[in-house]
């Protein structure tokens, strides 16, 4: 075991290997508030990478309805329960936030790596606390679709009035889109007895070496997000490859520039933004003020890691759904939730402009610039003054090529009424 620094937890933690960080790390932000659960992302991935024999139950990208759904079924609840059993009442946060090194304060509980040391059997300890899902749990990717939960038990023939008023709905669900988080401290990698899983130094994408894997499925047991999947026909494990040929700029459609992954590009709801972020020696993020991901995670702090307490330092970030009861969200995204929702619900000029980058362009935007525009709208939202400016945001690829330019006011095209059905 080594001591590594996990900035999402604001402290050092135990990890089986020394930290080794890529120059630039694959990362993404999903805005849950916008996801419509259409599964276009899921199908984009499936039709690109997992359409072959033996991959029938393999969904590298999945979208589940929370709180009841999950693929595999109940993956998060099961792990939370295991952690709670080993550290009853101890999975808590406190401590003062500190920019870049501890933005959410400090996690006082145990990560999957630390808790595993207590879970010893004849084989020895696990590398990361986990469990192997059953066939049945893998059998249906979208169980409980659209099932809401309510504060009161339902009554026959009675409509539950007031369930839908903000700030927290009493009747609620939301869609959680998930892919592999290409973690900085991957549990899958830590658990593999054959060192078949590696993290690429160029972009931090985590891959399974198909030649080395011998189907031990220790990674499936260890990955807290359950994002490695076993293929019975080849007897090796497969997982999301972060569409690395695209990220490398090898998709001809990008004209040689790095492109966002298939699932990002296909997103109908424009909820996704993916790119690469620069890292320091200890794995914390290098200041890169006008990288949109850096801005969303470290400046606006609206995007939060998924279950940071698991300890793998996932590189997927989420803008939490603002209608969902906070205790649930705090468990899922940590203590940054309240601030994130507050800022997202009352966006400033820069945030409004950066949110426009989502889904507008397939090539990766590494830096943005905002040109100020006129005030176009003013109102009061929940007792606060809100003004909207039609600023223009311009995005550039890592080599300085301009890849996107868009405005806060979304372009509207009014069709001439030449014919009744003019298109």
């Amino acid at each position, binding site marked *: 075991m080594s001591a590594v620094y996990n900035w999402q937890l604001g402290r050092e933690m135990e990890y089986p290997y020394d930290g080794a960080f890529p120059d630039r790390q694959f990362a993404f932000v999903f805005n849950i508030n916008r996801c419509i659960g259409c599964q276009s992302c899921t199908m984009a991935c499936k039709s690109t990478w997992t359409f072959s024999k033996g991959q029938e139950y393999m969904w590298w990208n999945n979208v589940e309805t929370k709180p009841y759904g999950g693929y595999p079924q109940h993956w998060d609840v099961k792990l939370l329960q295991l952690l709670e059993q080993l550290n009853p009442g101890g999975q808590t946060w406190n401590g003062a936030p500190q920019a870049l090194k501890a933005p959410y304060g400090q996690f006082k509980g145990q990560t999957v790596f630390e808790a595993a040391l207590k*879970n010893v*059997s*004849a*084989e020895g300890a696990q590398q990361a606390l986990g469990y*192997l899902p*059953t*066939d*049945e749990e*893998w*059998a*249906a990717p979208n169980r409980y679709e659209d099932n809401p939960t309510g504060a009161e038990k339902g009554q026959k023939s009675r409509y539950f009035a007031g369930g839908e008023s903000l700030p927290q709905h009493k009747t609620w669900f939301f869609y959680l889109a998930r892919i592999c988080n290409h973690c900085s401290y991957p549990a899958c990698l830590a658990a593999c007895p054959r060192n078949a899983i590696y993290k690429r130094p160029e972009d931090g994408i985590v891959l399974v070496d198909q030649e080395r894997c*011998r*189907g*031990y*499925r220790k990674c499936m*047991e260890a990955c807290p997000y359950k994002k490695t999947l076993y293929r*019975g026909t080849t*007897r090796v494990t497969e997982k999301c490859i972060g569409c690395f040929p695209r990220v490398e700029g090898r998709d001809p459609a990008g004209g040689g520039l790095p492109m966002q992954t298939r699932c990002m590009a296909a997103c109908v709801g424009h909820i996704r933004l993916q790119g690469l972020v620069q890292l320091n020696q200890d794995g914390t993020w290098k200041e890169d003020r006008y990288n949109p991901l850096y801005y969303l995670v470290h400046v606006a702090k609206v995007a939060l890691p998924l279950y940071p307490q698991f300890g793998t330092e996932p590189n997927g970030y989420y803008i939490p759904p603002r209608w969902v009861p906070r205790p649930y969200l705090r468990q899922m995204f940590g203590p940054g939730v309240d601030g994130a929702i507050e800022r997202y619900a009352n966006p400033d000029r820069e945030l409004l402009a950066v949110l426009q980058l989502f889904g507008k362009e397939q090539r990766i935007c590494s830096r943005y610039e905002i040109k100020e525009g006129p005030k176009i709208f003013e109102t009061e939202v929940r007792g606060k003054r809100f003004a909207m400016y039609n600023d223009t945001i311009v995005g550039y690829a890592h080599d300085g090529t301009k890849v996107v330019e868009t405005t806060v006011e979304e372009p509207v095209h009014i069709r001439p009424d030449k014919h009744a059905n003019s298109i």
Partner: protein
Amino acid sequence: MQLRYADDFVEGAVFICANRRRCGPPPLQIRRFHLAREKLYSILDPDARNTAFFNLQLEWFREWGLEKMLVGPADEFPLLRRMLNALVFRRARIQRDEGAELYVGPENGRSGVVALRIERFDRPDELACFLRHEFAHVNDMLDPAFGYSPEVHLPGRNAAQQRLTRERYRLLWDIAIDGRLTAASRATLGGREQHRVAFDHVFGFWPESRRNEVFDALWVDRQPRHADLLAIASDPRGLDSTHEPVPGAACPLCGFATFAWAGAHGLSAPTRAAICAEFPHWAPDQGACRRCVEIYRIVGARTPLAV
């Protein structure tokens, strides 16, 4: 009787066993198993590789007593060994797909096929209960005294009615099986109470006295018969014999169950003639559903009466 296994069944069961964190096989054996398994990845021909994996895994399947967990309960049903050519086990992914079937073919003779989830190997006691119940199904299917026929198909019933009948039949059969197993002091997955709840749910239209009578008879029946179960399942309300308009009975014209009977006695002569043109044996006493009456009223109005 030959034992046969689907490869993914054996593979899954052995893997689960090797991966068990508590009460698993000795670690040294697990290491040997994995080392042997690793070597097989170098076989390039896919068929040869699959065969090699199967053979290796079958060895450990036997070594770790998994085969014995299946054969033990099977041996409690001597009819299986005597009458089956093969007993086949295959992997079910979800609970709904679990269960036993009997296949009879010209070449392979009779085969019993049991589908189960591999996780059942993690709970040996429950596995034994599950298997015993399923083998009892196969046993009944083989037993001439039970008189099984795979045709739970009833002529003149629509698809929904057929399905309902099959569901009721399954329920009755399960009760009859677990009743006998309980009498033989065998543990079962579903207890008497549980079966009773399901039974009340499905046969809720009967008065309680009748439910008590039928359920109790089934639970203690030592020699249930296919035909009797099917009779209860197919027409529990005795609607077949009534041609009077009973709510939910089948309309004699269209055959659909109906709750909307039309007064067939007051029908006009042309309507009645139109019905009798297609159903010569129909009499107004048998009734007709409202929809049929509407149709024949229109048909009758269009057809000039041959006077």
